[in-house]
């Protein structure tokens, strides 16, 4: 299976202090992948608005960026979702907001809704900047899931294009799989053995996936596989934070129901506590 090639990249733009940074990030990404950039603005079209966008994009235009401006009024969520469908956007970029204290980022309610419902891959940026900050370390999930192979391949493609030094494949192993509760020395020994076995099993599975990755993607890259025991979806974000990753690549969730928001799992955890830039591969 091939990695998803991002032919069209979309970004929702509003006039916020982050506008220039958001546009710069999206344009850089588009240039990197040689894709077309679609700027989606929710609101009436006007000369003034267009000029502002074009002003920010002009340096990238000089480098050969192909872009399109899209103005549409209506409910922001609907507008952005329908536009991505219309324009066949493969990757939607959303900028996160920053909390007062520097360490935490969160998504606004609109961005969250879009992320949940989008049919394309989504890139959440926690810290969009005008200047380029090099991406050095990518953490990608290695869950036992049919989508994982595609996600891992995409991570390597992105890593290859962005020139990262290191990719870590994290296999989250649910605590329930370690069927032994630790009570005393004996059960501790048993659970340690079981964990070691799970670790090897998961390691072997990830290795199989890694073997299918085209060789030119993995050149000059340190590849690590790290099993962690913890809550699915949550622990990987925590790990990405601890490992100081610059990008976290994850599978898109299977299906979202009302209960998933009440009892958050997988992607929902990541949405509430963005540890770093997150790429959700559809």
């Amino acid at each position, binding site marked *: 299976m091939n990695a998803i090639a991002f032919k069209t990249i979309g970004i929702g733009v509003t006039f916020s202090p982050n506008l220039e940074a958001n546009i710069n990030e999206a344009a850089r990404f588009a240039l990197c992948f040689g894709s077309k950039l679609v700027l989606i603005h929710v609101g009436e079209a006007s000369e003034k608005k267009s000029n502002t966008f074009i002003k920010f994009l002009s340096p990238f235009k000089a480098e050969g960026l192909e872009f399109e401006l899209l103005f549409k009024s209506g409910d922001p969520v609907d507008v952005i979702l329908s536009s991505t469908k219309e324009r066949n956007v493969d990757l939607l970029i959303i900028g996160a907001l920053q909390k007062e204290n520097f360490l935490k980022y969160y998504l606004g309610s609109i961005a969250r809704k879009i992320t949940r419902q989008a049919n394309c891959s989504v890139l959440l940026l926690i810290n969009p900047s005008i200047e380029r900050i090099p991406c050095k370390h990518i953490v990608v999930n290695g869950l036992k899931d049919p989508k994982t192979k595609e996600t891992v391949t995409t991570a390597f493609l992105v890593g290859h294009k962005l020139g990262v030094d290191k990719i870590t494949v994290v296999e989250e192993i649910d605590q329930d799989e370690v069927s032994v*509760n630790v*009570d*005393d020395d004996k059960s501790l020994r048993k659970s340690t053995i079981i964990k070691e076995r799970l670790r090897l099993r998961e390691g072997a599975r990830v290795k199989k996936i890694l073997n299918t990755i085209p060789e030119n993607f993995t050149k000059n890259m340190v590849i690590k596989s790290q*099993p962690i025991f913890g*809550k699915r979806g949550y622990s990987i974000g925590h790990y990405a934070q*601890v490992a100081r990753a610059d990008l976290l690549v994850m599978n898109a969730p299977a299906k979202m129901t009302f209960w998933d928001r009440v009892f958050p799992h997988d992607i929902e955890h990541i949405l509430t506590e963005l540890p770093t830039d997150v790429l959700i591969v559809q």
Partner: protein
Amino acid sequence: MNTKETSFVGFIKDLPKNMFSGLVVSLIALPLGLGLAMASEAPPIAGVITAIVGGVIVSILGGSFVTISGPGNGLVGVVLVAITTLGMTATYAAIICSGIILVILGFLRLGKLADYFPSSAIQGMLAAIGLIILGKQFHIMLANKIVRANGIEYLLEIPNTLLTVINFQETGLIYAAFAGVLSLGVMVFYSKIRNKYLQLIPAPMWIVLVSVGFSYYYELILKMPNPISSAYMIPAIPNIQEIITNIPTPNFEMVGTLPFWSSVIALTLIASIESLLSIKAVDKLDVRKRRSNVNKDIKALGLATVVSGFLGGLNVVTVIARSSVNVNNGGSNRSSNLFHALFLVVFIVLFSTELTRIPLTALMAILVFTGYKLASPDVVRRIFTIGKEQLIIFFATLFVTLKVGLISGIIAGLIATFIIHIVVTKSVTLFIKNILKPNVLMFKEENGSYFLSVKHFCSFLNFNLLKNKLEAIPEKSDVIVDFSLCGFVDHSVMENIHDYQELFHKKGGNIGVIGLDILGTKSEHPFALRRLLPLQNMIPDNKTKRQKSLELIATDFELTYKPLKRRNTEFLENFIYFKTKKIEHIFNQLSAKNDPCRLFDITFSEGEFIAKEVVRSTMLYIKTSQNVPVFTLDREGFLERLYVLAGYRDIDIKNHADFSKRFYLRGENTQEIRALFTDELVRFFESNAYYHIESSKDGLLVFSKERIASIKEIKALLDFGVRLNAIINKP
């Protein structure tokens, strides 16, 4: 790996030792059982029944190793309330119900209830229990029985009682009060006098022996009635036939009422907290460093409580003081708990009538002392050094417990802690938003060490998450706990982490805590690790007379004298002597560069929790080459002959009958030890003063008595060490 067979052989081999320690423990358990039952206003025999049932059932089904079970101090207050509000037979029903709940908690793996309470609140609750015991029994100890409404009023009456006692006219009462004061004296000074013959019999048993002897002295020699007022003697203890025929039937009629269930909940809560704290403390003392299965133990304790309730006994809990005695006397597996129960049966069968010769005042002195231990000023001082806010939690819990009751007290402690946490962090959302999040990440790094990262906050509310992860790590590993993503870490967590650090250290692993310093400076964090730093409060210029003399000795022997406390005591940890003890620090060290000998004063503690005793002593350490076998050499006296009977082996050296007779030599590797004890060494030991000498793999430890040595003794010890060194480290 120890296979099943060898562990069975080991079990049989250890049986005599455990029988011996079971005997010593039963000597404490008998008076304590009687006293605790009487303090809760239950029939005195109920306490002994509790201990017997607990000993039998928990030793067979339990999950811990060297613990002793029986009636607990903490429960006195709760049982007392239950008996006064419900009556005796309904209390038995409540005890049975609490036992059933404990079993259920064990099956739900919720035995570790105490983990969910902040440690300062638990301290406050224990102190309150201590004060309840002390306040009530103090008056009986001084032969001035009074009845008041609650714990505080009993405490306020203490000055009045003292005045009353001074003005006693009736000789019966004077003798009774005198017996109480004397017994209290025995309890207080017993641990200070470290004589191995005196220490063989536990202090409570000395009190029993002396008072029974006193009674017989009057009866047989003076031919006079016992002068102690009969109102302050233990009421008649039924003999074994009566106990069996008079088993009370629990009365379940009040099962539908609120007071019944509040008693059940209080009994369950305290039983589980006391047991858990004791199991944790005893695990620290275990020579073999085993890990207790808490939930299995809770199930066994619950079942034992049910049985005990049906047989007319009280709640069965794990008890710290008796367990500490068990460890100190060589108890190594659960059989000692069983033996303790069996010896109690023997005592009751043989001596139940003799027990009525014990004055009540003497028995209550034992309880006053345990109450004081729970609420000692040391606890307050320790909490104060951790932080003033901890003191608020402590006293909030303490006062509410005394004034209202145990459950309200612990709830007050919880609320106080939570409010203080909110005030300190100036944020409610930090706790509310993140409480349900699995905030601990653990992964194994490539070099085999474990990394734990904690997010958001870590306090008593969610410590169990971190704890579960820590529990699942083999203790031999290196662990790093990173709090740098954490906005708040509370005192309960710091204290527990410290416990884990000790545990890991003991088993050869290590826990490093990082990320706290940022936290401390950023948010003026009050629970920072600084409380663990050594206190260097000794001012070098302000030396005692002894220290000045030590300086003179140092110049005499061409040694360097270092008065300050030092905590790098790893070189002592391999000695058998310190296996059941915890070394605090060494100080007043005399040493020289390139000299294998060094002499120092040492502070160490025995026992844990309320049974903790701090001992200071002077010792000499000689570094040796690697190939000295592990041995212990002592003067052979009456006690050592007793040890031989209890299964400890004495190694004889051929052709040195005199040495073999006078010295008690112990060790695993008989051949190597015999090879080490050359004629020269044996003659050296024969012709010098007796010292306790033991070797670890690469050093010798020499000392005579378990106390600080005088200047003269130090000179003798130094001289002995120099000459022993010349023989042992001969090139």
